[in-house]
């Protein structure tokens, strides 16, 4: 890991400003360090020669001025560093979020701003609403991860600058005063990084092996605490206490042998820097005694010698904490470099970017108007990195205003079919044709702009995601400008008005993170209200009542039947419990759509 990542410098203007400020501060601090040492040596030797307060007043006052200047400078540098860190973090965060959500800075409002789905969706099983662990990692990275940059900016970088400037300046000054001391410093100073590198290089393989073992042992306590109820019912809880002690002791043993090595580099740093000062002190003491040096020079050298090593020690002490921030920044760059956001659509094959230019006019949005006819023509879908196609040779027609129940076991391709309709994925073979009165001829779905196409769709996923917003705000997801009366009407249609009215603030109740306040059935009904308010001609429903208890399932069923009226609809479900409210049933198995039974 580099102490200063060039990408970090290039990316954020705040970083470049900060670097400039830091270097200027570093130069001034170096001058102040030299001035203080010289003044102290002057005053002590002057007083020893019998000069009084009056004669030394100028120097003593200058010491106070230097003290105040150093205090002001260190306050200013710290404040400026924290400000730069805040700005750099913000810049990285914004680029990250724009990148992973597929909303680019350059053209945020461009047609199909989120054309093919965000890059982080790739690798997900499908648009079934389950979140990826990747999303969780990104959230941590964008908040706590980047916060570690504070330390890097405010503590590490300034010390790094000083670690370059101060030793050189001290060497120059000491060399003019006493070349032998300068030689001692000049020899020991480079030894520190060399020895630290040698120790680090020598122990790296061993410590890495041990850290791996440590991680395994470290996870044990969490594992057994999480599994406590399970251990308890099998009467293993008491025995486990002894095991925890044994494993923690093993953990300690391994950690200590790792630390014995890990602390060596700090030991080398501390030993060499202190020993060098001691050597310099003895050497100038002896030469002073033989009259080869004057007292003031000796004092100057003695005061300056530790200063040469101090920034190096500080850098060493802050190295690990600061590198967390650098590592976080590097992770951000890795994500940013992971290709253009739109190249990898939602778990699906790449949608050729070049086609975007060929997009024909958007599908006009007509609330309540008839839906287009959608024809699947030999459609196949293979997810990248997988051998088995998720769908193969699907021929299917979705007639305007009619509903289709798609049944099949899990993994049969039901959700993939919805993903195609939602444009989260594009067919790898065959075409999906859209026939609509507004279009002269049938048009492949992939040539329509994704945003305008999705505007014709209302989707109720299996696990709808509710946002940390009010109930009304959640219902307005697809229609931000809807009036309160329209929101309420949609909730009534979705059988949701009853429980929403019973919430403490009714429609203005905040739902908490991920809608934690509501039960699964209530969340499903809020999602249905969303779909009603969207008033789209096509509705897609994924397992609307799976996991619901009978009371909730009943309400959801009523609302779904209402939603399907006069709209094109596809219900995906594992069983046939929906046949009496749909117009046709198709069965899907291993990616193939089988018989189609009109009901």
């Amino acid at each position, binding site marked *: 890991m580099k102490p200063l990542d060039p990408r970090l410098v290039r990316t954020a203007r705040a970083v470049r400003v900060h670097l400039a400020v830091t270097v200027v501060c570093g130069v001034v601090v170096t001058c102040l360090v030299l001035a203080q040492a010289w003044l102290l040596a002057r005053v*002590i030797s002057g*007083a*020893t020669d019998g000069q009084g*307060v009056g004669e*030394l007043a100028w120097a003593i006052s200058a*010491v*106070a001025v230097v003290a*105040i200047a150093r*205090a002001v400078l*260190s306050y200013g540098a*710290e*404040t*400026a560093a924290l*400000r730069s860190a805040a*700005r750099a973090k*913000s810049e990285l965060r914004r680029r990250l*979020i724009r990148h992973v959500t597929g909303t680019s800075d350059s053209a945020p409002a461009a047609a199909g*701003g989120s054309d093919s789905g965000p890059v982080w*969706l790739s690798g997900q099983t499908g648009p079934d609403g389950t979140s990826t662990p990747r*999303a969780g990692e990104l959230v941590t990275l964008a*908040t706590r991860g980047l916060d570690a940059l504070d330390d890097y900016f405010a503590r590490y970088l300034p010390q790094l600058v000083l670690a370059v400037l101060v030793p050189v300046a001290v060497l120059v000054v000491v060399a003019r005063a006493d070349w032998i001391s300068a030689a001692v410093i000049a020899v020991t100073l480079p030894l520190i990084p060399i020895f630290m590198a040698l120790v680090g290089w020598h122990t790296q393989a061993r410590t890495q092996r041990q850290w791996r073992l440590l991680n395994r042992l470290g996870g044990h306590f*969490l*594992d057994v*605490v*999480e599994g*406590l*109820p399970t*251990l308890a*019912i*099998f*009467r293993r809880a008491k025995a486990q*206490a002894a095991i*925890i*002690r044994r494993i923690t*002791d093993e953990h300690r043993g391994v950690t*200590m042998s790792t*630390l014995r090595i890990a602390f060596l580099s*700090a030991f080398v740093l501390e*030993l060499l820097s202190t*020993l*060098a000062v001691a*050597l310099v*002190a003895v050497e100038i*003491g*002896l030469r002073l005694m033989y009259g080869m040096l004057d*007292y003031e020079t000796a004092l100057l050298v*003695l*005061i300056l010698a530790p200063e040469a090593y101090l920034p190096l020690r500080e850098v060493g002490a802050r190295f690990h904490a600061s590198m967390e921030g650098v590592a976080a920044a590097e992770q951000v760059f890795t994500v940013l470099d992971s290709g253009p956001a739109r190249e990898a659509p939602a778990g699906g094959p790449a949608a050729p970017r070049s086609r975007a230019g060929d997009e024909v006019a958007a599908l006009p949005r007509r609330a309540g108007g008839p839906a287009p006819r959608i024809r699947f023509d030999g459609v196949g879908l293979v997810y990248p990195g997988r051998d088995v196609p998720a769908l193969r040779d699907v021929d299917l027609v979705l007639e305007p205003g009619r509903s289709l129940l798609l049944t099949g076991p899990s993994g049969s391709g039901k959700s993939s079919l919805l993903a195609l309709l939602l444009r989260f994925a594009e067919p790898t073979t065959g075409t999906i044709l859209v026939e609509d009165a507004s279009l002269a001829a049938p048009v492949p779905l992939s040539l329509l702009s994704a*945003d305008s196409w999705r505007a014709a769709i209302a*989707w109720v*996923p299996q696990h709808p995601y509710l946002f940390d917003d009010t109930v009304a705000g959640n219902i307005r*997801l*697809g229609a931000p400008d809807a009036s309160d009366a329209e929101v309420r009407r949609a909730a009534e249609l979705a059988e949701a008005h009853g429980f929403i009215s019973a919430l403490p603030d009714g429609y203005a109740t905040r739902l908490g*993170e991920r809608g934690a306040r509501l*039960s699964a059935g209530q969340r499903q009904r809020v999602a249905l209200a969303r779909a009603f308010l969207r008033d789209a001609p096509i509705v897609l429903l994924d397992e609307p009542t*799976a*996991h619901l208890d009978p009371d909730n*399932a009943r309400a959801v069923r009523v609302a779904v039947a209402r939603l399907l009226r006069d709209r094109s609809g596809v219900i995906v479900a594992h*069983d*046939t419990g929906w046949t009496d409210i749909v117009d046709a049933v198709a069965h899907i198995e291993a990616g193939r759509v089988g018989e189609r039974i009109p009901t």
Partner: protein
Amino acid sequence: MNREPLWRMIALARPRGARFALGVLLGALATGSGVALLGVAAWLISTAAQHPPITALSVAVVATRALGVSRGVMRYLERLVTHDAAFRTLADVRVRVYERLARTEPVRRFRSGDLVSRLVSDTDATQDLLVRGLTPPLVGIVTGGAVVAVCTALFAPGGLLLAAGLLSAGVAVPLAAAALGRGPGRRLARARGDLSTSLVDALHGAPDLIAYGAMDRAVRRVEEADAEITRVARRDAALLGFGEGAIALATGLTVWATLLLGVAAVSEGTLGPVPFAVVVLTALAAFEIVSPLPAVAARLGAVRASGERLFDVLDTPASVSDPADPAPLPDGPARLRVRGLRVRYGADEPWALDGVDIDVPPGRTVAVLGPSGAGKSTLAAILLRFRDPDSGTVELDGTDLTRLPVDEARRVITGVPQDPHVFTSTLRENLRLARPGAGDGELWEALRRARLADDVEAMPEGLDTEVGSHGARLSGGMRRRLALARALLAAPRVLVLDEPTTHLDPDARDAVVTDLLDATEGRSTLLITHDLAGLERVDHIYVVSEGRVLQHGSHEELLSRAGWYRDAHALLRRG
């Protein structure tokens, strides 16, 4: 007992007191060596300036060299000793936390995985406190005291000045900075919370947002939250920079004042030039003593909060108690009778179970069905002895369950808890948990009955397959079957299955329920569930809602009567 969590956390280290004392001594020697090096060197030089005979300097020369070596060595030893002591204490604390958790009701606490992982990191915070929070202040007191004493002996005003400087730089400024930082910390935490919520919404909710064309709005919300946190951080930077500046000022002014008083004293003849040089250079070096303290003060708040949560667990009273006069294990046909069972989680809370009667006849399978919040998991907690009932009885073959020692009761009644945990280990270890020492034959038999044997045979490592963290390398259905196999291996008299199929997709759920009912045939079994899958095969069904039994009977009886069960069934089994 002192209620301050910091003191209580430190008190946890008392059994390791001698090791920590050694650590503090070594730390004091290390820090002291650094300060003394400059003091002795100052003496050496100022004495040498008077051109004495070489013998006058020999002790100082040796001392200087020794100090040059001892600082690094002592620091290295100090770090090893304190880390070792802290790890030993961590083992004690982990065991205490674990034993306490095992005696309180884990079920409700464990509803949230976040709470568990936070508890674990709180436990580990004691180690951090002991290494970084306890030793540096003690080392500071010992070294600071010694250095001030030496300086005072040489030049009383200088010593007092140094004491004042060290106290302000090491105590007053860090505490003031921590207090000043509290407001920004709170504001930042709030802004960070908003940012993280908006990020979670934008990333986890991405499919919904994209489908509804709302992603741009969500990103705007993230950017607003980002603008706010950046604004707060930039504004508060002015407050947070205070500590650094104030410490630099205290250091510089202390040296300046010492210099001023020293020069005056030297010219008055009350202070010799040699002690003068020693006092000034010692003062210059002494601030190294207090340099670790601001970091300690800044972290105290977080460590205290960890301690509060930790002692919240350690102070929780046990929710089950072993009987003073235990009854012998019942030895009948395994008939479970629940009568008038009432449970609630606090004096002001509603009854979770409000007078429930349930019978499980020997060898029969009985289901308890109801919507979420009906009290089903409370019933499981009572049966699995995570709680004592508030009133009413649970009897096995006429013996009251509370008259058995807790682990004896779990010998006769056990099963599959809600969200059974799969441990990061092999299949074999996960199974043997239920019967240590079970041979491979028994393990395979249990796997066969749970219909998992074929899958395991297909794995190259068989029973030695590592299942990954939380069984991540198994499918959801396989994890459920593993839990079932484990319960079968324990071979209790009564099997309790608490929601054995939650979070499975419908196909897997139906398959698991079928196999589970096959596997438990002939054993007294209580199946707690919220869905209707497989209920036509059980002997008796209790419908529970809001802590009471609404109706009960066989599948056919309940279908023939108007009521909740028939309605629910009609709805879900239509078509």
